[in-house]
Structures are given as structure tokens and as C-alpha cells.
């Protein structure tokens, strides 16, 4: 079982990205996938979007896996491995989680040492404002990613080059790919997500 951790600020497009990635896993790669969905708030909203997608979904409510319920996450990972043991486990973090922290936690406590990749989705349409007001959180979410997808480039206009430059300054040599909110992700982008070697 290999693990894909998806992070990124609230509303950046994590769920839409995961739906495309999961479809690629099941329909093109003919492999199996399960999902841990972490949402903040008493009413789960996103998990309904996975209904009918053929993905085994394990919701985690009541807090953020990054800080409040991190042990619940490790329990869920262990349980999924011992019951379903899919080829891929996708973890959708809340939009407030710091993916690097969650990855460190799983690497430390997941006894089976699954291969793991951290993918952070950046909302290009709100990058300037989010960085202006919430800079420490936004930077910590992007830092320590293994792959960054700059999403909603169609909403960024002429700022897109500056946004990519900003992200590059944070992540160094980590791959940065771009995607539009209005078009399906290109195959090359989806394949890069699975690049765990």
C-alpha cells in the first residue's frame, strides 16, 4: 500500500483533484484505492462527493489530523492496511493542516513504512490575498511537499508567473505543476502524482 497525502488551503481544489487521481487509479491503472477524508466541522460535506465513485471512504471528523486527532489517522491507516489493503491510500487533509507535519507523523508511527508522497494544492486564484493575510500558514502548507500543483491558473491572470516564482522560492527543487479549474488534469500531471520512486 502506497500513501498519497493531499494538502492545501481550504477550497484550493483537493477534493476535485483526488476524484481525478482516484479515477486514474481505478480506470486506467486498474488498481485499488481507499480514502481517508478529514473534515473539520460536525457536518461532513465533502464525503458525499465520493459517493458513487467506487472509492472506499473512511471519514475522520472532530478535528484536524495535523494537530488534534493525529493518532486517529495512524489508527485508520493501520486498520485500512489490515482490512482492505488497497494499492493506494489517499489521505485528504483539512485545509488547515500542515502536510509536512502529517507526513512526519505517519513516517514515525506507521510500522509498515509505506511509501508516501505529499502533494500540496495551491489556489492560484487566491494566492496573493492568502499570502498577504495568512502567510505563516500558507508557507508551512507548501513547505516540505514532494509535489506542488498550482491549481486554478485560469483565475490567476497575469500573476501566475509571480505565483510560481513565490512557490519555487519556498519549495526549492520540488516539482511544480500547473492545472486549470475548468479542464481535466493532463495525463502527465496525474502520472507525476504516482511517482514515488
Amino acid at each position: 500500500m502506497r500513501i498519497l497525502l493531499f494538502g492545501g488551503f481550504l477550497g484550493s481544489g483537493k477534493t476535485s483533484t483526488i476524484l481525478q487521481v482516484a479515477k486514474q487509479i481505478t480506470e486506467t491503472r486498474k488498481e485499488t484505492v481507499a480514502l481517508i477524508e478529514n473534515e473539520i466541522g460536525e457536518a461532513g460535506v465533502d464525503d458525499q462527493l465520493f459517493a458513487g465513485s467506487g472509492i472506499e471512504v473512511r471519514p475522520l471528523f472532530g478535528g484536524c489530523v495535523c494537530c488534534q486527532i493525529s493518532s486517529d489517522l495512524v489508527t485508520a491507516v493501520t486498520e485500512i492496511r489490515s482490512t482492505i489493503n488497497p494499492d493506494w491510500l489517499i489521505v485528504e487533509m483539512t485545509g488547515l493542516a500542515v502536510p509536512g507535519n502529517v507526513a512526519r507523523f505517519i513516517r514515525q508511527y506507521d510500522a509498515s513504512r509505506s511509501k508516501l508522497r505529499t502533494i500540496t494544492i495551491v489556489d492560484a486564484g487566491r494566492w496573493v490575498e492568502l499570502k498577504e493575510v495568512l502567510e505563516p500558514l500558507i508557507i508551512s502548507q507548501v513547505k516540505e511537499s514532494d509535489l506542488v500543483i498550482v491549481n486554478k491558473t485560469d483565475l490567476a491572470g497575469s500573476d501566475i508567473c509571480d505565483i510560481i516564482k513565490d512557490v519555487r522560492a519556498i519549495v526549492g527543487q520540488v516539482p511544480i505543476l500547473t492545472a486549470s479549474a475548468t479542464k481535466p488534469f493532463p495525463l502527465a500531471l496525474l502520472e507525476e502524482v504516482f511517482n514515488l520512486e
Partner: protein
Amino acid sequence: MSDATVFSRSQQLVFEMPVTRIDAENLLQKMLYAIGEQLSYNKIILGHIKVLARVSTEDDYLFLSITRLDCVDVKPSPNWLRASTSTINGMELDINVLVFGYSLSTVEKVVNAALRLF
């Protein structure tokens, strides 16, 4: 800036007269915009506002979200889409607002005002 405000509510709506799903969708879009407008910064939301509107039958729902004022994102389930011109008597709303910069009482007030659209 301090922590995000988390607001969740499930709300049952019963209409006085049946409305088409298209009309319900328009009202829901207006509701999201009305919430977003009051909780925005420079025309974007420092967080997200999401609503799941469900009618009684299975897999019959509409998902709406807003992160910027120029766009309300709408995702209908296949069943909702298929029956778009048929009428409904009510729906169950799951409202989820996560936003920086506004207190819980403000968010609650804004959501309550927006719900009066129905």
C-alpha cells in the same frame, strides 16, 4: 491572524409551495453569495463556504461552494441533474463555513440572514 472560525449547521427547509430544482439551485447560489459577500476580504473568502443540499431520495443532492465572490461552484449529483425540472417540497442543508477574520457570532448572524432568502 488568530484561528479560523468553524461553523457547521444542518437545517431542514420546508417550502410553502413546491419549487423546481432549478429555482432551488438559484436560491442556494444567492444564499452562498450572500454569506460570502459578508465574510469576504478583497472579494475572496479567507477560508471556504460549502453547502450540501439533499432531498429525501438517495444520491439526490446539490453541492455548492464559494471561495471568491465572482464564482459559486455548483456540483449536482446525477439524480439531481436528471430531475432538474421536477419540483421539491423541501431539502436538508448541511452548511459548513470555515473562515478567518470573523467571529462565530458574526458567521451565525450572516448565515441566519442568508437563510431568510427561502
